[in-house]
C-alpha cells in the first residue's frame, strides 16, 4: 500500500478527468479580479504556488492591471508584494489608488542575473504575497528553478517577458499572452495546467479606471 489519498483531495485535483467536464474549484487559487479570466482558469483564479508567465507585446497594454486586484487583496493581508528589477519607476500614487498598500510594496534593484537570484530567493522564502519580475535573461533552466522555488515557498510568481518568448517552451504552468488588436488589448491563454486553454481571446478590461 502506498500513500493514502483522501478521495476529496483527488477529486479536487484538476488533472483528474472524471468523464464529464466539471469545474471543481481548486482550493489553492486566488481570484484574479477579472471575471472572464477567473472563468477560464481551472482553479477559478491564479494558481497560488506556481510561476505565471505573462508575455506582453509592449508596455502600457494593461499588463499590470491584470494583477493589480490580486496584489491589492494580498497587500491588505499584510503580505509583502515584491517587485524585482521593474523596468520603470512604480508610480506610488497610482498603485495606491488601485487599492494596494504601499507599506507592503517592496522594490528590489538588481542587474539581470542577480534579478533571477533575487526572485528565486523571494519565492523560496515563503513570506511574500506575490513576486513580480521582468527577467531579461531567463532561459528554460532558470524558469524551471523559479517554478520549483514557487512550489517550495507556496508563493505566486509572475514573470513578465517579451512576446518573442512565446514560441519557446516554458515550465511555467500558466502562460498568458497580452497583445493589442485594434483598439483593445487582447488576452489569450497559451498554456494552462489542468485545463485546455480556451481557443478564443479572454475578455479583459485593461483600463477600468477610464
Amino acid at each position: 500500500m502506498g500513500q493514502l489519498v483522501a478521495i476529496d483531495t483527488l477529486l479536487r485535483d484538476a488533472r483528474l478527468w472524471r468523464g464529464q467536464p466539471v469545474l471543481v474549484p481548486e482550493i489553492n487559487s486566488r481570484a484574479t479580479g477579472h471575471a472572464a479570466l477567473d472563468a477560464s482558469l481551472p482553479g477559478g483564479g491564479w494558481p497560488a504556488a506556481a510561476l505565471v508567465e505573462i508575455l506582453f507585446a509592449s508596455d502600457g497594454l494593461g499588463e499590470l492591471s491584470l494583477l493589480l486586484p490580486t496584489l491589492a487583496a494580498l497587500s491588505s493581508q499584510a503580505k509583502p508584494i515584491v517587485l524585482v528589477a521593474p523596468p520603470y519607476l512604480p508610480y506610488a500614487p497610482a498603485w495606491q489608488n488601485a487599492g494596494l498598500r504601499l507599506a507592503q510594496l517592496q522594490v528590489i534593484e538588481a542587474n539581470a542575473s542577480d534579478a533571477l537570484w533575487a526572485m528565486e530567493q523571494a519565492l523560496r522564502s515563503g513570506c511574500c504575497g506575490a513576486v513580480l519580475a521582468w527577467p531579461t535573461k531567463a532561459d528554460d533552466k532558470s524558469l524551471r528553478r523559479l517554478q520549483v522555488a514557487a512550489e517550495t515557498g507556496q508563493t505566486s510568481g509572475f514573470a513578465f517577458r517579451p512576446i518573442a518568448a512565446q514560441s519557446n517552451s516554458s515550465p511555467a504552468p500558466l502562460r498568458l499572452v497580452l497583445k493589442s488588436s485594434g483598439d483593445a488589448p487582447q488576452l489569450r491563454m497559451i498554456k494552462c495546467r489542468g485545463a485546455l486553454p480556451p481557443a478564443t481571446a479572454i475578455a479583459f478590461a485593461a483600463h477600468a479606471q477610464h
Partner: protein
Amino acid sequence: MLWACILLPQLALDAVLRRHPTPELPLSLISGPVQRRVLLDVNTAAHALGLVPGMGLLAAHAIAPRLLAIDHVPREDENLRSLLAAWAYRYSSMVSLEGEDAILIEVEASLGLFGPWPQFERKLRDDLQMLGITHRIALAPTPMAACVFAAAHDGYALTASTNMRQALAQIPLSLARIDPPVVTALAAMGLKKLRQVMALPRDGLARRFGPGLLAHLDRLSGDRPDPRLCYRPPDVFEQRIELNYEISHHPALLFPLRRLVNDLAAYLAGRDGGVQRFVIALEHEDHADTDAVVGLLAAERDPARLFDLARTRLERTTIPAPIRALRLIARELPPFIPAGRDLFDDRPAQAMPWPALRERLRARLGEDAVYQLAAHPDPRPEFALRRLPQLLKEPAPVSLPPRPTWLLPRPMPLRDNALKILAGPERIESGWWDGGDIRRDYYVVQTSLGQRAWAFRPAGVNEGAWMLHGWFA
C-alpha cells in the same frame, strides 16, 4: 548564596586552538625570552608525542620536527576570559573573575529560571563545548571553595554549608589556591592536606605565615565574608583573530569569520541584545585596513543568519593585499525584539520571515537595493516619489487625476502619428522655487499599438511633439 566556578585549566591553549583550522596536528604554545623559548602548553597530539610543558623549544623540535609553535599572547587570554564572562552574564547578574583562570557565577538566584543544578550544569557545559573551551565546573556555598573544588573534582557540587569543613578537609594543599611559597613551607613541615592545616592553632599560623593565610582559610570555609567585584559587560563588542599565515582568498576566511560571529552572538545573547551594524576589518601588512560593513535594518542575533550575511558581504569585498588579521567591531547594539510567529501560521516550515529575506538581499545586492516607495506631496511627477529603506506607516492616499502605474525616470519623445487623446489636458505648473520649474499639459493618450500612455506638451501648445512620461500598464 551558591557559587559555581568554571575553571579554565588551559585557557591560553584554547584561545589558540579554537581559532586554528587544524587543531588535531601537534601544536604548542611557547613563551620566554628569544634565547630560551620554552613550551608553555601543548595540545593532545603533541602530548602524545612526548612533549610536556616546560620543555625547551629546541628539544621539542628534535622530538617532533613538524611541531607548530605559536607565540603566547597574554592579551588574548584576557580577551577570551572577558568574552566568557560576557557569556556567563546571561545566566546570572553576579559574575566575577577570579585569579587568572577562573570565572565565578552566583547561581542560587538563577536556579529558578534554569532548572535544578544538574540541568543547569549541563547547559553550562554544552555552551562551553560549543565555544571550544576546556573547563572544570564545581558548585559550593563560597566562591573560593568552588574554585578549589573545581580544581580537585570536576563536577563536584556542595550545596549545604554544614558539610563544608568535611569536604574541604580532603583537599590537598597544592590545589587550595594558597600562595605557592606557603604551600612549599607547609609541605616542608609535613602538612599535605587542608585538614592538617585547619587543625593547627590559629595564633601560631598567623605568627608564622602572616594574616593572609588565615584570611584565605576563613574565606574558604565561609567564616569571613568574601565580597567580589562583579563583572560589567562592555557596551562595545570588539574581537580580533590574528591569522597564522597570510590569506588572500575568501574561502579561507570563513573559519575565523564563523568564530568571530559565534562569539558576537554569544555576547549578544548574554546581554539580551541584538546587533544592527557591525564592521569586519581585514588587516593587511602594508596596506590600510579593508572594512566590510554589515548593516541591518532590524536588530538580529541569530548566529547562522549573522554569519550568512557577513559571508555574503565579505564575498563582495575585494581583497587588495594578503590578510594578516581579522577584526569584528560592533558598536550599535540595540535591544533585540524577536519576531513573533502565529501559532496557526500555515506557511511552509523552511519559510524565512521578510526581515531576514530583506537582509539577505541587501547583503548581496547592496545596502540600497531593497526599497519602498512613498508618495510625496509635490505636484511635479518627477518629485512625487520618495525612495525609503523602510516605510513604517501606510501613507494617506491622495486623490489625483489619472496617474500611470509606470513612470519613466525622465520624459522622452513619443513619436506616433495616430495618437488618440483619451483624457486631458491636466496642467501641471510648479517648481518655480527650486529651479526645477515645469509648465506642462498632461494627456492620457492611446498609441497606434494600443498602448495607453501619459504624455505631455508644453503648457498652452496644442500641436507638435509629445513627450512620454508614463505608461498605464
